[in-house]
């Protein structure tokens, strides 16, 4: 039947996901360093502000950025005009976010007037929501680029998700040496083509080091072209030398710009700079008009492949820092699975034997309930596609130890009732009823712990909370629906005999 088939598939297609601690793999937590972007944006604001102040014919003094705040002085007379402009919801400098009911920028005024002047000091900085907005947009872009880079390396089923407004969590199952990924993610991959210059004024040029040596060159600050204009990059072998190179293709705009720049500067050296380090600085022998080129450097084929990958995936808007890393090798994962399974089986057996020893025939009922409980627990974990971790296995074992508690409570109660009651059926009934409140109270308290742990715990510990929590629910179910049913059958069959617990 079709229906049954589907149901089968539904169950078969689901599997228990093993956590990184069991299957091996890498967990990385990255934090976006938004500082440089905020600084850059503030710089842009300053430029637009200068323009606006000029247009409005407002006289200002000492316009500068200090401690991530734009400071400037203006006359008290202009204060109102400026505020009108600045708080106008349509103005181009200070956006208004309806959803937050907040402006992009906050400003404060300090009266600096004395006998000679009537100036005030205005201080403008990003508001809380302005910063959130920036961080969110950086994070969105970064997430996309991180995804491209990780995908290109080709690990199986990577998980890449955002955490809060400045973090990215990456899980790479099966990867036991995250060094390459870490290197790839550690680069913003900001590629620029800039001329090498003799002119050593600090305003228009800067000294930059080579990537692989201490040597430095004086590089013009003017960017001829950036990595944004690349459409493709791939590793290649140079026809003549046989060295590994990265060959690239510009888009149309880029090709035109590069053509013009190389035509104007034949004979000069152009530096190819990645994240403020010089990869190489070849001399322009002839104009490059086709929009194709290659980067030579001291590459191995691997490093050329990685650079090409970085250039293809684009530059990160801001640097990423790895703030947490956890890597488990596959052999340790295997060992953990083995140890977890063995301890589960032994713990399970010990409890089963102990219950048989304590309760004889009713022990069989408790044991059947325990087995059912374990099957249910694993089944639910599978259906929920929960992730099983090593502490999660510990949670299952612990559930095994604690699950019999419900039946113990009931059996002990029944034992007491048997002393008073003549009819064993009655004794069972009352026993179940009276044990109920203790069982509920007892399990709810453990459940509370599990829930708190689930929300505040992280990684493997969360797995523990899940198995413990679900274990409590299946335990209650088994004690009340399964064991009770079995014991009532048992009692009914033996109602005339004296039942010994």
């Amino acid at each position, binding site marked *: 039947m079709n229906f049954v088939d589907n149901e089968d598939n539904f169950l078969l297609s689901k599997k228990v996901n093993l956590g990184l601690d069991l299957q091996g793999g890498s967990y990385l937590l990255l934090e976006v360093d938004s500082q440089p972007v905020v600084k850059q944006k503030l710089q842009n604001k300053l430029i637009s502000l200068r323009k606006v102040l000029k247009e409005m014919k407002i006289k200002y003094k000492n316009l500068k950025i200090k401690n991530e705040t734009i400071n400037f002085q203006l006359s008290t007379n202009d204060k109102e005009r400026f505020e009108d402009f600045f708080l106008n919801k349509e103005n181009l400098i200070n956006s208004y976010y309806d959803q937050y009911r907040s402006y992009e920028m906050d400003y404060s005024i300090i009266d600096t007037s004395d006998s000679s002047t009537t100036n005030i000091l205005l201080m403008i900085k990003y508001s809380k929501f302005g910063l959130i907005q920036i961080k969110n947009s950086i994070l969105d872009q970064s997430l996309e680029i991180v995804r491209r880079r990780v995908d290109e390396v080709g690990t199986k089923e990577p998980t890449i998700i955002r955490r809060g407004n400045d973090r990215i969590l990456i899980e790479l199952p099966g990867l036991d040496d995250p060094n390459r990924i870490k290197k790839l993610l550690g680069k913003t991959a900001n590629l620029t083509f800039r001329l090498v210059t003799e002119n050593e004024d600090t305003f228009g040029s800067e000294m930059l080091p080579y990537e692989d040596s201490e040597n430095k060159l004086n590089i013009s600050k003017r960017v001829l072209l950036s990595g944004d204009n690349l459409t493709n990059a791939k590793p290649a072998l140079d026809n003549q030398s046989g060295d590994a190179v990265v060959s690239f293709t510009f888009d149309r705009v880029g090709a035109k710009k590069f053509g013009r720049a190389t035509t104007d500067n034949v004979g000069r050296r152009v530096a190819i700079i990645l994240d403020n380090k010089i990869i190489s600085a070849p001399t322009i022998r002839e104009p490059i008009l086709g929009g194709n080129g290659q980067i030579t450097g001291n590459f191995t084929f691997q490093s050329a492949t990685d650079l090409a990958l970085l250039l293809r995936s684009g530059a990160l808007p801001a640097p990423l820092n790895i703030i*947490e890393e956890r890597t488990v090798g596959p052999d340790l994962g295997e060992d953990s699975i083995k140890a977890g399974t063995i301890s589960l089986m032994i*713990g399970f057996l*010990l409890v089963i034997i102990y219950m048989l020893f304590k309760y004889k025939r009713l022990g069989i009922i408790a044991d059947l309930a325990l087995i059912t409980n374990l099957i249910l627990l694993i089944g639910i974990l599978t259906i929920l596609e929960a992730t099983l971790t090593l502490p999660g*296995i510990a949670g299952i074992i*612990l559930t095994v*130890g604690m699950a019999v*508690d419900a039946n113990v409570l009931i059996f002990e109660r029944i034992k007491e009732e048997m002393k008073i009651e003549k009819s064993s059926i009655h004794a069972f009934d009352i026993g179940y009823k009276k044990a109920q409140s203790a069982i509920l109270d007892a399990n709810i308290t*453990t459940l509370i712990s599990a829930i708190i742990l689930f929300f505040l715990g992280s990684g493997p510990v969360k797995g523990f909370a899940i198995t413990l929590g679900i274990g409590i629910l299946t335990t209650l179910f088994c004690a009340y629906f399964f064991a009770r049913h079995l014991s009532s059958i048992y009692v009914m069959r033996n109602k005339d005999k004296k039942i010994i617990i």
Partner: protein
Amino acid sequence: MIFKISNDIKFSHFYRKLNILSLILILLSIITILFKGLNLGVDFKGGTLIEIRTENSITSIAEIRESFLKMNLGDVTVKRFGNENDYLVKIETVKSDDENFIKSINDKLSTDLGSDINFRRVENVGPKVSKELLRAGILAITLSLAAMLFYIWIRFEWQFSLGAIIALVHDVIITVGIFSFLSYEVNLSIVAAVLTIVGYSMNDTVVIFDRIRENLKKYAKISIAEISDLSTNQTLSRTLITSVTTLLALFSIYIFGGAILKGFSFAMILGVIVGTYSSIFIATPVLNYTNVSQKTILKEDKKNI
């Protein structure tokens, strides 16, 4: 059972002596925690943890330590971990900015020891994250204590919640105190263990309280001390059986579950023992000290109607 539990143990006779003992244990624990401190793992302190497996068994701890000393990484501890060729290295400095950090350690170590070194596990936690994890851990334990308090306050009278919470705090402080005394590492899984202990100890206490409440309703004239003894005796075999099955499971994890789960299961074993003890000898005596009687319970019933 080999010995038969007589059904009339006078628990209440031991209350005072054992409470003084517990008080001393708690004070000792607090003093140890304050002065000796906790051996916080990389989760909470930041730093790098590396589990190493060496290929040849002649490698000694001293050689590994020597090699790390040459790398100038500040405080480094090396200890054996589980199997004979497995070692756990803890480096206190955090170097999250250098993506080659781990690889360079592996290279230097392999050269120094003259064989391939397998890094089975690497954990690198930055200072910001470790602070957050520590805060979350403390918050989780505090929250769970508060949640328990709240739950038992709804279900029982205030005397009961007082008793339960004192017992819980007792369990947590003594367990953490023993960890401090033995210099065992405290990491995320220990927090999980402490939370489970809180749940377990509460569970144990509630079962006895439940019976005390029931007996208080039944017998008006009997003193609370006798009610406590009666209820503890009635629930004693359950208390013991459940402790035994839980301990069976825990010892199985402790012995067979591998080195990673050792700390966790050890904390849990301590917690189950201390928690069982505290339900009988800490939580219940509080009801005696606060003079709980049938009136306390009936008042509550009236309130509920």
